[in-house]
């Protein structure tokens, strides 16, 4: 089953529910790359607060999504990594380097707004 993507203005919001399979995550990567172009989105927020495990595959795929969407002109912010999940990721050796993260959806949206504001100022 495809992971649903919600469009809110120029932002795409994805809330990953339960435990996605590898195929669902890979499809999400393709779907986001496509929709960022179709909707001319500037930001993507991926809420992972429902995830009970973030293993090396999920983490690598999220990094892949962040890089792909960036090349398509949109910033990705991963929000909602749970405390236990963050602890396990650290021990596993996953850093999520070069991926922006925020505490929750609200913080993520604020972060995106600041990034867009910065981009707009630079253009003026």
């Amino acid at each position, binding site marked *: 089953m495809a992971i649903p993507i919600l469009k809110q203005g120029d932002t795409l919001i994805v809330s990953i529910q339960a*435990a996605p*399979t*590898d195929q669902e995550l890979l499809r999400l990567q393709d779907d986001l790359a496509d929709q960022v172009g179709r909707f001319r989105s500037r930001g993507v927020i991926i809420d992972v607060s429902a995830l009970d495990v973030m293993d090396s595959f999920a983490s690598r795929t999220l990094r892949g999504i962040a890089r792909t969407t960036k090349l398509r002109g949109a910033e990705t912010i991963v929000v909602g990594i749970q405390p236990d999940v963050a602890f396990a990721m650290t021990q*596993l050796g996953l850093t999520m380097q070069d991926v922006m993260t925020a505490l929750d959806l609200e913080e993520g949206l604020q972060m995106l707004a600041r990034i867009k504001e910065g981009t707009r100022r630079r253009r003026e």
Partner: protein
Amino acid sequence: MSSDIQIPIDRESDIVTARQKGRELAAEAGFAGSDLTVIATAISEVARNIVTYAVRGEIRVTRIQLSGKSGIQVVASDHGPGIPDIALALRDGYSTGKSLGLGLPGAKRLMDEFEIASKAGQGTTVTMRKWTR
């Protein structure tokens, strides 16, 4: 209350089943909080290794007790190609696949005890244990 579960691993969706069942058994064994996530993550990594490198195998999770300590043991076994150089496979960032190379060394860090037995052409058995604190 079961004390032993076996999960056949032959497709990617079995990885999720294995870590969910492993988490349940770990909770029954007295683990709580971040330990449950840590155990589920380690199971996810060794299960993915089976799917990626050996195609099929199984994960067995058992409640264990030893001189007053209790914990769980996870055994991931397959009859795949085997790991030619275990020391290299346990090095961070080393992968013959397309992964981050964190699976085995990461799982080792997550658990208290970790052993790999492997013979070329015959398969691999990863045994890991974690004790309640």
